């Protein structure tokens, strides 16, 4: 703070509080809706802003599914949460693993076509899954990977940003460490495992947070590679609950939405330090 300006301080706090309220309000409403019954939501104009008494029922339906008054059936969300979790973990850990290995190769070895390899990885930045969905779907279909964890995760695992992040980090590791390791008779993999990996822990943790969220929130890709319900991640469960139904069970939709956002939101809140580092490092 440079100078004391009480009015400006007041304005700052007011603006920030307003910002926090706007950011939080939709989620508050979602929670409120999940505590009411579908009928309560649809018949009160506007919907009540105070909690109702249907919390347990809404979440039971969202987690384990079942029949509802309107006659429709709700699919169980529990298996979808599990699919999302596996998918997010495989994508996050897979990206970290293959990026560590390729960054190690790029930094600590000289081999033919090293430059070409570097550029091939770089170009993947320009090929997000959204622009190649049609043909990538065909490849997955030809490889018989539809409706499998492999199909859900493998095409999303390669990551230029993660590779560059580790490459950047390895370049700052002092040469003396590799020299010492070599003098001690350690081979490259020994050096990688005993020296480089422990040093990279911070970067790995930061990257994990970002990639877990990325994996958990994937939508378009699961939408096309999964056709069987038992491979749907939770984000698709939400879509299914609002489309094709004549009568939307908003309380269950909102309970599902809360369940879908809880794990990544917790990861961000609990690992805030790593999250910020991961975000800034991977994007720059």
């Amino acid at each position, binding site marked *: 703070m440079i100078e004391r300006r009480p009015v400006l301080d007041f304005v700052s706090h007011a603006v*920030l509080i307003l910002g926090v309220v706007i950011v939080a309000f939709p989620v508050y409403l979602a929670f409120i809706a999940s505590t009411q019954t579908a009928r309560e939501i649809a018949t009160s104009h506007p919907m009540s802003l105070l909690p109702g008494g249907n919390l347990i029922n809404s979440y039971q339906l969202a987690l384990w599914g079942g029949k509802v008054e309107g006659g429709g059936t709700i699919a169980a969300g529990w298996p979808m949460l599990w699919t999302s979790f596996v998918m997010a973990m495989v994508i996050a850990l897979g990206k970290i693993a293959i990026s560590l290995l390729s960054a190690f190769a790029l930094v600590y070895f000289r081999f033919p076509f090293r430059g070409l390899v570097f550029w091939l990885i770089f170009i993947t930045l320009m090929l997000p899954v959204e622009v190649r969905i049609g043909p990538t779907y065909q490849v997955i279909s030809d490889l018989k990977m539809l409706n499998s964890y492999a199909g859900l995760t493998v095409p999303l695992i390669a990551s230029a940003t993660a590779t560059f992040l580790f490459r950047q980090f390895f370049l700052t590791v002092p040469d003396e460490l590799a020299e010492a390791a070599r003098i001690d008779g350690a081979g490259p993999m020994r050096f990688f495992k005993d020296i480089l990996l422990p040093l990279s822990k911070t970067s790995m943790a930061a990257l994990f947070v970002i990639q877990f969220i990325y994996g958990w929130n994937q939508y378009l890709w699961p939408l096309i590679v999964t056709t069987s319900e038992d491979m749907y991640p939770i*984000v698709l469960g939400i879509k299914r609950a609002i489309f094709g139904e004549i009568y939307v069970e908003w309380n269950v939709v909102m309970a599902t939405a809360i369940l879908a*956002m809880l794990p990544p939101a917790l990861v961000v809140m609990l690992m805030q330090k790593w999250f910020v580092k991961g975000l800034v490092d991977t994007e*720059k």
Partner: protein
Amino acid sequence: MEKRVRFKSAWLPWLLIAPQMAIVLVFFFWPAAQALYQSVLQEDAFGTSREFVGLANFERLFSDPGYLASFRITALFSALVAVIGISVALVLAVMANRVVRGATVYKTLLIWPYAVAPVVAGVLWLMMFASPWGVVSYALQAMGFQWNHLLNPNHAMALIVIAAVWKQISYNFLFFLAGLQSIPNAVIEAATIDGASPWRRFWTIVFPLLSPTTFFLLVMNVIYAFFDTFAIVDAATHGGPGKDTAILVYKVYYDGFKALDMGGSAAQSVVLMAIVIVLTVFQFRFVEKKVQY
């Protein structure tokens, strides 16, 4: 910077890059090549016959009013998302950078929407604008404003812009805050001693020093609006009313997987690839080398 010390092995480096190369070649380059190849083919609906048609798919695409409309929609959508999202986040970041008490609390409370899936953002705002019981649409009605995103294209556009901005604010906020905190205090202090008001200091010193961050965010927000908002559109408006909120990515998906026009969808993919390439080049040319004014 190059390493002085290197390990020697003829096969180990290849083994190390093999997993990444396998994925990159099979799931990135092969499909991208397929998209290029398909974009010059005409396939009948049953996939039984193919014919080389040159650039006909592209000609068809760019003479299709629906596609050109989708271009305009995407341009408008991403401009609104980027400008509104960046402005709001900048105000919040400047305020958060000012306050001493509670700065961490504000930061924590403002960054978590990053973790919310786009589809959830879409559904949350859809509920708030649902007629007639949605909280916001009801409030608008009470003020004499008839909200109907199912029929009014402007309302539908507003709905997806609000949801997309809401989700992106945390991202912009974090980068602006990091940018603000890297501005040396001495510069601001010197200006204060010279008698510059906070308002003047912001526009003559702080804002220019933030220009690299702003430019970076502009590119990232456009990329976000183009590619990461599919789920918002799919959940909130389904591309409607009519095709009034069908952004380019939505159209690729719709034409390829719903209308089964593979050649047209592939041509659209190629156009999108060209857009990403331009954006990426921009990002690296200007952002990596830091825009300096």
